[in-house]
């Protein structure tokens, strides 16, 4: 699916990138296409029990009273 200029402008606006010129928007078009291709390569069988690799943790010292 080809990406058009409107899609690039919409993506730029969503990312709050308001100062991109035409060269930068062309780069963003390539980024959109590349992101699609990369996303398609992710495995489709990830189970909900497979958590993210780095999970937020509190340290032991965080529970100490001052």
């Amino acid at each position, binding site marked *: 699916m080809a990406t058009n200029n409107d899609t690039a402008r919409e*993506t*730029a606006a969503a*990312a*709050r*990138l*308001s*100062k*991109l*010129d035409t060269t*930068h928007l062309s*780069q*963003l078009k*390539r*980024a*959109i296409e*590349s*992101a*699609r291709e*990369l*996303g398609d*390569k*992710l*495995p489709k069988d*990830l189970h909900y029990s*497979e*958590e*993210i*690799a*780095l999970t937020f943790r509190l340290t032991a010292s965080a529970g100490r009273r001052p």
Partner: protein
Amino acid sequence: MTDLAFLGIADAADLIRACKLSPVEYVLALLDRISRLDSRYHAFIHLTADLALSAARQAEKEVAGGNWRGPLHGIPCGLKDIIDCAGLPTTAHSKVLADNMAMADAPVTLRLKAAGAIMTGKLATHEFAIGGPSFDLPWPPAVNPWGGNHFPGGSSSGSGVALAAGMLPAALGTDTGGSVRNPASMCGITGLKPTYGRISRRGVLPLAYSLDHVGPMTRTVRDNALLLQVLAGHDPEDPGSADQPVPDYSADLERGVKGLKLGLVRHFYAEDMQAHPEQAQAIDRAAKVLRGLGAEVREIRLPPLQDYATCTRIIIRCEAFAIHRRWLAERPGDYGNLARQRILDGAAVSAADYIDALRLRGRLTRRTLEAFAGVDAALTASSMDPACRIDDAEACARLYPRQARQPFNVTGQPAMAIPAGFTQDGLPLSLQLIGHPWQEAMLYRIARAYERATGWTERHPPGL
């Protein structure tokens, strides 16, 4: 002069400690060499000659007074220019941060200074450790001293070049998707990406928080162990830092590999990607050398290389874009073309894909560590190809993803690139060794045995 240029940390330390080499003489010799060579190789962004000489005089006084601090005392050292050194700009090789003065030392810089190392300058990088080699930045890209006008790898390009050209015996790089090991491979030097959390990353400009590592770069294995010894340790203010004991990294260096079980990850460079024939043969020969030294080498299989690449690329894109979004919103034209493209790539990735990449990371890490269960360490390719010409943008773009380094940024395991011979054209070939988490000492032991058997690290670029 030539002797001082390629003197390693260990040998220089012995001479300095015995007052047979003056740190001032050493620094002056290297500064003279840098002044003659760097207009051609562009390893330095900021040369700190006056500061280096002043620190060298101080080191000389201390050593003469019987206050030798250790093997780094009086040793010239350079920092990739994304690492803070108080009073110097941290530019990231970018117009965006050309005037970004560091107010404090990064903990790694502090550790080096406390060990008596001589800060000699800030070294070239790919812009923000992601966009290079680029010719549209305020400073030219570093050039490989091997070959005519070749790519030195990156992003820690200046570090690799300064070592290979005999301008410095020690440098720091950073490695998010292979950026210590790539220039090590292309420049024929030794570079370690330690275990994630082994070295503090505070005061270092991030590329992707969850994949960033700082790593020691040297010419020899022994020197690398000496440098890691100073850098390793817990930093409670770096959220990624781990509170793990720091062993003596030099203790087992000469133990050899007899009886060790080593996994050969051949499918990375023979099936998942087809390495350049000379590079593939170099790794197969390395396996043979290690067998000859008494190691048991057998093939092991990890998940396909492409799975790690997908995982790494999505994570780097998203985390880098989050870090750069505000600068990119205000000053998109101040980025070089390559860095802007690679950072903009993250604007288009969905949050769900980023989360899935992090979940994939967990799966890949589990499967990798399972495959390592029966071996002491593994070997495979670092780069699939030798260096290409730096002025051939298409060749550089092709070369960039042809590597097997990213898997170990995903898993956080220690991995090092060491020289493994040369092509018929005289360009460096390399070997990657990978260990269990926190087992850097095992990598040094294997690398040292291989280095001793082959002598590759004793070779230097012709004419230098």
